[in-house]
């Protein structure tokens, strides 16, 4: 079995997620070779060959350009599986590659046992065990699901022949300005989710945060609805936090939220649905309507 691992170059370096792909391959006992579009002088702590396509020529991400580069490497190396992270890069590119290779695509893998893969299902309330029915298989791995593995120095094979594509034009990046609180330094975070129901109810969660001398946080729908601004958002597209105590009020525990808070020391979930997937991360799960429970808890704490 041979795996082609597709790395990502982000914010000026090879993203750490590459080493999760390596860890995954170790777990399933596969040989590996790497590919990444990055500066040619990049260093990787990886014991093997990595094809690097010159990012100065490939420029900012263009799916067609990257797809063609990977197809070339696939032709040379003939891997059985091609592995991405389930990131904005991976979920954009992996399906396109699967079509070109007539390969099965299995997304957001959280575990692997031989050639069986486990993926989340129904907003992570359930799991599915699946298997591919094709010669080549394209996989994306949920970030954080596999332990990283680092060792050695990669042997770099540079790729200089890069075709351009003008069907999509990249017009620049937009970076959210950092305002409000820096949740990454907070010792206690109490977050409000869609379960609060309406904007006025945020106050109830905020009062609990105050009583615990902590900061207020939020899940994404609360931010999307305009109940709180972006700086409160915890998760893959918000902040990654690891306080001593994280209290999730009316938050279901979607993967993208968990990714931002599961490293907290102690997690309390307050949710009326006993089966909410936040249960996989919570140390204490309070089955209750938050509008009834949280005010009682707050008043006991402030007494």
């Amino acid at each position: 079995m041979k795996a082609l691992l597709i790395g990502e170059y982000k914010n000026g370096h090879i993203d750490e997620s590459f080493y999760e792909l390596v860890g995954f391959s170790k777990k399933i006992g596969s040989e590996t070779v790497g590919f990444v579009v990055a500066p040619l002088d990049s260093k990787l702590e990886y014991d093997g060959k990595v094809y690097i396509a010159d990012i100065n020529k490939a420029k900012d991400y263009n799916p067609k350009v990257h797809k063609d580069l990977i197809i070339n490497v696939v032709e040379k190396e003939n891997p059985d599986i091609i592995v991405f992270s389930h990131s904005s890069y991976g979920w954009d590119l992996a399906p396109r590659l699967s079509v070109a290779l007539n390969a099965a695509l299995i997304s957001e893998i959280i575990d692997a046992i031989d050639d069986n893969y486990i993926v989340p299902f129904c907003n992570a309330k359930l799991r599915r065990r699946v298997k591919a029915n094709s010669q080549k298989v394209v996989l994306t791995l949920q970030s954080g699901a596999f332990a990283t593995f680092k060792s050695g120095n990669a042997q770099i094979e540079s790729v200089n022949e890069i075709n351009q594509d003008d069907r999509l034009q990249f017009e620049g990046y937009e970076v959210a300005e950092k305002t409000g609180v820096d949740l990454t330094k907070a010792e206690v975070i109490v977050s409000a989710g869609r379960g609060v129901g309406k904007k006025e109810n945020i106050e109830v969660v905020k009062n609990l945060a105050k009583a615990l001398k902590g900061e207020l946080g939020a899940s994404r729908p609360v931010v999307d609805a305009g109940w709180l601004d972006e700086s409160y958002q915890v998760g893959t597209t918000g902040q990654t936090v690891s306080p001593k105590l994280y209290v999730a009020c009316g938050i279901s525990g979607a993967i993208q939220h968990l990714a931002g808070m599961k490293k907290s020391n102690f997690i309390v979930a307050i949710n009326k649905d006993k089966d909410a997937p936040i249960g996989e991360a919570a140390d204490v799960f309070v089955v209750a309507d938050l509008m009834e429970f949280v005010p009682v808890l707050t008043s006991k704490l402030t007494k």
Partner: protein
Amino acid sequence: MNVLVCIKQVPDMESKFKISNDKQWYEQSDLTFKINEYDEYAVEEAVRLKEKLANTEITVLSIGPERTKEAIRKALAIGADKGVHVLDNEPQKKDSFQIASIIANYAKDKSFDIIFLGMQSQDRGSAAVGPIVSELLGYNCVTTIVSFEYVDGKVNVKRELEGGIKAKVSAKTPIVLTCQLGLNTVRYPTLPNIMKAKKKELNTINVSELLNEEPRVINLEVFVPEKKKGSIVLEGKVDEMADQLINILKEKTQVLR
């Protein structure tokens, strides 16, 4: 402008799920179904485009059993013009490649300018159908859009990356776009529009007419994940649970003393 929106009907994620007897899926009886959240943004964005651009026609397509018609009717009430129901009594047995090829087979001779889909479905969540459709049709494709604008045959979108960064991308139609949370706020259909939707055209096509691919991914089993090891579940009276929780926090964390 000829627009297609693909929507999926999914269970309400707050439902109590039971695994089906064959362990292949969830039990479908007793569940409430609705439009996949991401697909509602897709419908809304298409309707906003139609409001700005004369001569725009929006077709809504959904693959699924008979009940799927309710989801299509809702999209028509939001403002789509006509519905296409691809009747499939076992959509759970199809993988994302098959779903995409059904959509592509339907779309291939209809010259759609824009195809909107959700970024992912809430039940299966492969985030794959959109880009696969684009490859099969040879269309441009941008995934995970949080902003959309159409100007003179060109689409300007923002594509969400990680950590609050967005990439601005522009491209010519025809194009496939997958919609992310926060793209817009979906309107509630008004009563007159719900009434009007009942009269809009809704055609049914049998899935066998559009599908000629075998699944590439085989479903082996569905199961319930375990709760965190050593976790405590509190149930009962609010007052007692609050006391219990305070005691646990005193014992196990340093934040209360």
